[in-house]
């Protein structure tokens, strides 16, 4: 049941919290000109909950969250059955799907592990947000962990199947 995934937060800031319309600073540089963009976007916290409580943890790692309908309008290839199946089975490597939160967030959401930002913890602590329930919170952490730890081999063993003793 989708309502059990996301809910209005009732605890302190933790991993898996969805910051609503958060203000993310994005610095870029072109030749001698710096540009600081402050972008309003939903973002989900990836920093470990146990680290968030530490005073030394002054920044948070967050991932951009898109409304699925808006992403779908922009990228028609997301309609492909294989892509949708991967998302629904949580088998996509770089994207993580979140269901709607009735009464709070009507749209499906898409977390992109390829669009990460570091933001101020002090700013995030009191920001309006929803929280991802357990064990979906841990599933998000696991998906991000797998995204980061994966290793691509230059050559697999599939071609040597015939050599494998029967």
């Amino acid at each position, binding site marked *: 049941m989708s309502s059990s995934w996301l809910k209005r937060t009732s605890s302190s800031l933790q991993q898996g919290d969805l910051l609503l319309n958060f*203000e993310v600073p994005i610095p870029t540089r072109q030749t*001698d*000109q*710096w*540009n*600081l*963009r*402050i*972008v*309003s*976007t*939903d973002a989900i916290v990836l920093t470990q909950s146990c680290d968030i409580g530490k005073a030394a943890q002054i920044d948070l790692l967050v991932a*951009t969250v*898109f409304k699925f309908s*808006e*992403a779908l309008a*922009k*990228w028609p*290839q*997301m309609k*492909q059955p*294989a*892509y949708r199946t*991967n998302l629904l*089975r949580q*088998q*996509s*490597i*770089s*994207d993580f799907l979140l269901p709607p939160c009735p009464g709070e967030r009507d749209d499906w959401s898409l977390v*992109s592990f*390829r*669009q990460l930002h570091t933001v*101020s913890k*002090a700013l995030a602590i009191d920001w309006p947000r929803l929280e991802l329930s357990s064990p979906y919170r841990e599933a998000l952490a696991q998906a991000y962990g*797998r995204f980061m730890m*994966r290793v691509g081999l230059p050559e697999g063993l599939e071609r040597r199947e015939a050599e494998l003793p029967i």
Partner: protein
Amino acid sequence: MAATTGHVISTKLVIPALLLSGTALTTTQSRQGNYSDSHLAITASSMYGAAGELTLIQEALRKSVQETQMRFSDAPPSIWFEDDAEPSLVDLFVGYDTSFTLSLEHDNSALLNEFSPSSDSWGGM
């Protein structure tokens, strides 16, 4: 200046004006030196008394001119987005010798343009 953290404001330009003002040590209205003046005035008063031995105070101030730089927090001013006014770039980046622009985007459409859905899946690994 190639500062990467904090906003460094030198007091060098402020203190000479103080030295000329004498008894104005505790009442200066200089905006630029407001914090510096108060800090130094309190120090001078506590060390030398309200009547003041101006020579000693001057000496203390001269020493402060040579040694004092104050570092302010990186935190942006709290007034940042409380209204639609453009943030003051001077206030935000005072002391930085660089050129920059600041923009505010009210949605993540630009991020969505940079996003690209991937067909990579664990099933295909």
